[in-house]
């Protein structure tokens, strides 16, 4: 199988979908699912294949290189699978909206461009796919119109700023080394001065940081995630922002090489520490802000930023365990965050667009499968043992502690406890508590929504009990980067500094759970009662009014909210305003009168002559 064929299917499928939609909706739906399924299958076939294909385009002598190895395979498969599930999820979700052809083709285009990014072998093709992805994402974010357009604008402005900065970096690299192919670059950069490497890192880091929503470049993310259609939110949060992660890994491990990276700077001021600290800040602040959110998707959006912080922390810290943890967390986060967005989307679908956490409640009785999905999702998010999030976080913490960085570990752990607070709030306010009367007749989510939810929740448990499978892949990626591999087995990690064995824990939980359940079962049977037979100090339970969800963590929020104003966002907005004002000022120069322009030109020539006479610059 050829890589170019894969890309051709991806891009061609996107295009054909649009035109198929003009013929029949049904055929288009089936075709979209088929294309994404094909992508997932084909991508999976590249396992353990390592190839590199060079196509000459004849354009400015830049080679167009596609390559696949375990690293890009890992990302490509994740992208294709999550893309498949969100396409399936879209089937019902998007049906009643307008402009569905456009939606599907854009969705496939985003997936195709992401696959293109991870398969590209040089920075030019990387940049081209990157721009396709940015713009198609922009179109999808603003799909819902209304507030979505401003969210999309925010996204695209930041994204374009990022890619321009990246372009500067790419041009600079090309000027220095005359090549943009990864494999050639990596050897050359070894000998560069550390100042130049730092310059490159900063340039690229801004671009990838915008995409990965690293604090303080995160401001586009909350509105974009909450305003985008839910299936796309799960793509956005699950994989799209992880393209930024891909870029960072590419930068640190492929282009620059890990040993060069680790030796940049000394002690607490080394680049690795600074990026780790930025990662920790990215964990902490968004976690607390997520606590204050009342919109389910916005809460998840802030949570996405916080989880991205773990990934950055793991990758930037640079030990083989932490990098494994970071990459594993990327994988896990793709699963549980897209699951959670799908859960919210299913609720949103059934309640006609309600995602305000203060007005839902009690839906567990009506949508049990969705609830279980949500429950497993938040367990993964928190990192409860036996879910996949646990192992990745454990790896990061362990290496932080044993390498004497307890404060980083502390901040990361504290973020987890914040995660418990907001994720319980999410699940409680949507599914638990009293069911409002107006939702008495609600139906459970349709099959096309339940299927991805069920599969993804099973995946969370599966990879939680058998973390060895993805860790094995990650191990081979790491050895490809020239790092020391971990000692892993199928059930966990066995090293002399600390072992983890999920099988033991799983067996213990299972056996003890069954024992307790038996005790529960043997003792007197309990009668099942409804939600109105409830303690209300002796009075009857008032309908609709007996539910605690507004300001769930009021005492804490009162304490912390004064410190958590989103000042970064305010900063950007004031920056935007001042740029607009400057623009207005500049526009005043262009009066439209030819006479004025003549004066400008004469003044400019006079200035040039004046400079020439005085300093003789040219």
């Amino acid at each position, binding site marked *: 199988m050829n890589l170019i064929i894969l890309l051709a299917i991806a891009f061609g499928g996107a295009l054909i979908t649009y035109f198929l939609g003009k013929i029949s909706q049904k055929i288009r739906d089936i075709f979209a699912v088929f294309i994404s399924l094909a992508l997932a299958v084909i991508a999976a076939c590249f396992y353990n294949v390592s190839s590199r294909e060079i196509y000459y385009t004849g354009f400015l002598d830049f080679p167009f290189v596609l390559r696949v190895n375990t690293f890009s395979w890992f990302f490509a498969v994740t992208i294709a699978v999550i893309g498949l599930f969100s396409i399936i999820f879209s089937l019902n979700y998007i049906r009643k909206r307008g402009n569905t052809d456009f939606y599907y083709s854009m969705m496939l285009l985003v997936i195709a461009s992401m696959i293109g990014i991870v398969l590209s072998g040089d920075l030019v093709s990387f940049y081209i796919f990157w721009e396709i992805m940015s713009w198609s994402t922009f179109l999808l974010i603003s799909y819902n119109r209304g507030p979505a357009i401003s969210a999309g604008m925010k996204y695209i402005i930041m994204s374009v700023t990022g890619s321009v900065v990246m372009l500067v970096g790419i041009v600079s690299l090309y000027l220095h080394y005359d090549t943009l192919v990864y494999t050639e670059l990596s050897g050359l950069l070894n000998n560069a001065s550390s100042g130049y490497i730092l310059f490159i890192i900063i340039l690229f880091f801004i671009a990838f940081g915008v995409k990965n929503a690293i604090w303080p470049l995160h401001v586009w993310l909350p509105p974009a995630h909450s305003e985008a259609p839910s299936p796309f939110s799960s793509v956005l949060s699950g994989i799209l922002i992880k393209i930024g992660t891909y870029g960072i890994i590419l930068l640190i491990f492929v282009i620059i090489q890990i040993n060069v990276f680790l030796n940049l700077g000394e002690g607490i001021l080394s680049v690795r520490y600074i990026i780790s600290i930025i990662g920790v800040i990215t964990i902490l602040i968004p976690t607390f802000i997520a606590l204050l959110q009342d919109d389910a998707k916005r809460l998840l959006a802030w949570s996405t930023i916080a989880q991205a912080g773990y990934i950055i922390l793991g990758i930037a810290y640079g030990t083989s365990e932490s990098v494994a943890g970071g990459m594993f967390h990327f994988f896990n986060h793709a699963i549980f965050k897209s699951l959670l967005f799908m859960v919210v989307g299913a609720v949103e679908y059934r309640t006609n667009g309600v995602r305000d956490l203060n007005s839902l409640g009690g839906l567990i009785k009506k949508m049990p499968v969705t609830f279980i999905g949500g429950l497993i999702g938040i367990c993964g998010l928190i990192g409860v043992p036996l879910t996949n999030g646990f192992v990745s976080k454990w790896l990061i913490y362990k290496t932080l502690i044993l390498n004497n960085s307890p404060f980083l570990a502390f901040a990361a752990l504290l973020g987890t406890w914040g995660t418990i607070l907001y994720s319980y709030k999410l699940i409680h306010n949507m599914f638990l508590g009293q069911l409002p009367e107006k939702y008495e007749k609600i139906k459970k989510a349709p099959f096309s929504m339940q299927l991805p939810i069920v599969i993804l929740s099973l995946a969370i448990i599966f990879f939680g009990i058998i973390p060895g499978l993805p860790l094995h892949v990650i191990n081979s990626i790491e050895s490809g980067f020239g790092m020391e591999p971990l000692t892993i087995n199928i059930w966990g990690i066995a090293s002399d500094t600390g072992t983890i064995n999920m099988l033991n824990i799983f067996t213990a939980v299972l056996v003890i759970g069954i024992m307790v359940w038996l005790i529960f079962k043997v003792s007197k049977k309990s009668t099942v009662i409804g939600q109105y*037979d409830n303690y209300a100090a*002796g009075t*009857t339970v008032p309908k609709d009014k007996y539910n605690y969800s507004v300001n769930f963590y009021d005492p804490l929020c009162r304490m912390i909210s004064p410190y958590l104003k989103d000042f970064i966002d305010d900063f950007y907005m004031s920056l935007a305003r001042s740029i607009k004002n400057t623009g207005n000022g500049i526009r005043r120069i262009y009066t439209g009168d030819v006479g004025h322009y003549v004066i400008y030109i004469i003044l400019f020539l006079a200035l040039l002559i004046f400079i020439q006479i005085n300093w003789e610059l040219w």
Partner: protein
Amino acid sequence: MDRNKLGKWLQSPGKMGQKYSLHALYFCTGCGIIEIPPTITARWDAERFGVIPVATPRQANLFLITGYVSVKTLRPIIRSYEQMPEPKFTVGFGSCPINGGMYWDSYNTIKHLDKYIPIDGWIAGCMPRPEAVFVAVTHLWTLIDKGMADGYKKYREDYHYYRENQEKILGKLEWPPLFSSKKM
């Protein structure tokens, strides 16, 4: 007091448990509540008999109806009683729930509490002393032992009649019947 006899515990743990762990629902239905704090605090200390007040009906198995019951109080009493898990025991405290007592001609107190919920025992007097609570508790032990504290069974059997009486006083009750009565 046969609390320390292991043999009895092995023979009928349920009964013994109910005897020595009477959790009283804390509900100030009337002026009798004034003698409950002395009963549970330092002077008399009901906890040595395993009697402690609890906050919600779900955790309680003893309902001390302390004093007269006005029409407005009857509703929460019925609600709380029905929410208690079985086996549950009720004790009327003071003369007023027995036959109206001092308020026999008041238009707003119900006179005979046992018309509305079953009562397992009475403590007469106005006000009964805290010692009387202990006498009642020890007497209740005997009743439990002999299987005569069966108010909750009666309530289950004759729920239809009780509900009818309750609705005569309180009008239509908001909650659905606790047991589906077969004898309707």
